């Protein structure tokens, strides 16, 4: 239903052009929940916002296409996008719902506002009735549509936000870390409610998060994002149980597993790339314990490993070796100590 192909989004900054999204392709089927995971600054949020072109003034979509039911959204004028796509087809839930509502209007007024902005023939009374129904579906008392945002608790506000997101019966919801501001119990209940409504109303969701436990439980498929690209894509179980990309392996290491004794978390050394005029290479190479000469020179192409499992890594074939090495602490710490050497190699390679 939603097909993103070779999407390129760039920020024009004083340091140069930042390739925040650098040739990203991924599909989203009806009613599917796709988890988009990765470190801060890897381009997750930019990807989501570029779908409805909600970008800063120095940010542009430089290439690729976003097709929603066959219609390329990047071809639409901003006016068409506002009228026909934003909220009616693609809506969103922000990280902190408390700040997602304008504090000086009641939540009901804000739901009515968006309904009437898109459906000129819906009366205020009908729109209010819809807001009330949505509230009740989400387990909030319908009378509370007349409350102001600050009168809701955090969890309640997030539910009200979901009600707002569903007000126009969209096809896709972009949820940018919708539960990070909530405690685990409330988080779980909220995700349950969202999942039920998603099935009932047939909505797909792009769930952006860095919480691996949330994605593994809630998502059908997971896309692991690094340096503006999707480096590994598969169904949730494959990503969690048998990933192939060194970055996914590292990511998995850095989350505690309560079923195992080892509580020693292994983190990935280094920081994500700045993506300012990036070189032609694997963007993860500087932090990858398995990087070889080829990785510094050639950007890997996506390779399929059956069942839609897509990996962008030159060494993905050596999966057994990668997995066994990635589990060891030394693999990652050694890299840290040889980092200066890596930089040397990098310059050497460039000089060649």
């Amino acid at each position: 239903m939603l097909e993103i192909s070779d999407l390129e989004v760039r920020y024009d900054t004083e340091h140069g052009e930042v390739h925040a999204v650098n040739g990203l392709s991924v599909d989203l089927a009806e009613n599917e929940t796709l988890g988009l995971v990765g470190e801060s600054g890897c381009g997750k949020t930019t990807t989501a916002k570029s779908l409805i072109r909600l970008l800063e003034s120095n940010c542009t979509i430089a290439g690729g296409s976003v097709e929603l039911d066959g219609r390329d959204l990047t071809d639409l004028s901003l006016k068409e996008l506002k009228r026909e796509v934003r909220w009616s087809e693609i809506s969103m839930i922000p990280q902190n719902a408390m700040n997602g509502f304008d504090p000086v209007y009641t939540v009901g007024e804000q739901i009515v506002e968006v309904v009437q902005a898109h459906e000129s023939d819906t009366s205020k009374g009908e729109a209010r009735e819809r807001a009330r129904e949505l509230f009740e579906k989400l387990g909030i008392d319908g009378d509370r549509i007349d409350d102001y945002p600050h009168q809701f608790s955090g969890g309640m506000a997030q539910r009200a936000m979901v009600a707002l997101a569903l007000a126009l019966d969209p096809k896709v919801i972009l949820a940018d870390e919708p539960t990070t501001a909530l405690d685990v119990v409330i988080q779980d209940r909220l995700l349950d409610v969202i999942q039920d409504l998603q099935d009932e109303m047939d909505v797909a969701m792009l769930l952006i998060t860095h919480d691996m436990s949330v994605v593994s439980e809630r998502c059908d498929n997971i896309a692991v994002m690094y340096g503006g690209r999707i480096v590994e894509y598969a169904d949730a179980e494959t990503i969690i149980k048998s990933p192939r990309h060194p970055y996914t392996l590292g990511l998995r290491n850095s989350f505690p597993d309560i079923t195992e004794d080892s509580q020693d978390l292994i983190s990935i050394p280094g920081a994500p790339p700045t993506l300012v005029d990036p070189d032609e290479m694997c963007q993860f190479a500087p932090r990858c314990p398995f990087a070889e000469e080829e990785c510094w020179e050639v950007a890997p192409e996506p390779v399929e490993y059956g069942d839609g499992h897509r990996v962008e890594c030159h060494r993905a074939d050596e999966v057994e070796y990668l997995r066994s090495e990635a589990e060891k602490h030394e693999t990652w710490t050694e890299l840290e100590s040889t980092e200066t050497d890596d930089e040397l190699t990098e310059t050497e390679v460039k000089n060649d």
Partner: protein
Amino acid sequence: MRKFIVRRVAYLILTYWAFITILFLIFRVTPGDPTTLYIPEGMSQAERQATLERYGLTDPLYVQYVDYLRMLLSGDLGTSYRYNAPVWDVLTTKFWNTIFLMAGAMTIAYTFGIAFGAYIGWLRGTAKEKYGMVLALIARSSPEFWIGIVLLSIFVFQLGWFPWGGIREIGAEAPASFFDRYVNWGFVYHLVLPVLTGAIYYMAQPILLMRSSMISVLNTDYIEIKKAEGLSNYTILYKHAARNSILPMVTVVALVAGLSVGGSLVIETVFSWPGMGREMVESVHHNDYPMAQGAFFLMGSVVIFMNFIADIAYAFLDPRVRYE
């Protein structure tokens, strides 16, 4: 909401009481008593004593304080030494002269300044915003007297469109009734340049304040959500962004409105406008204490009252205040 208003009224009364008490004390601790300033030299000790007694200045302080309160409550501000007329009568004329001047200038400055500030805040990072900022900063850094003189030299001495100052034709008697005095073209004609001077000078603050307030509101999540909702720019700008940005302005407007009752000494001097600002300075020069006290009283009253209005207005504009 009712509870909120009741509480504010209580605060109002308390503040007001503190204000008039401080006003009373300030004029008691000023050095010397009225006889040293206002009674002719060479007055004998007995005459001096008699004068002090006549004005009740020999009574203990608390008796004076009670008298003072009683007189204020009955609207009696005493007698001006200089005019030998009730302070209240002299002040009301000056007060209204100032109100017309300052209300005109402030209304233009704040209406235009808020709308313009919201607009350039919305256009952040564009060339239009830069030019707007340059204009605002020029207005901000131009002294009032300079603006006044520039306007005078263009519109009076070059073009001859407006009179050079005063509030009516030179030599004309002030009409007795309020209506005749202010509601006529002659007055408006005299009013234009002083109001324009004030408007230009006072406009910079609302522009800059509204712009920065707007910029911080535009960075909030809810503005992004409103954009994602596909609402029109107009709706987002005025219904959401400006509506939230205007909140800090309410306090400023109230404060400025209160202070402006004191008039603008500079504008009044440049345009020979007989207003509160000049009156207050002259009263102090001539040691006309009842007059000065009366002027302070009027000014303070308006500041306190405007703040009260601002509190109430705030509650209407921002629901979060109401439920505190």
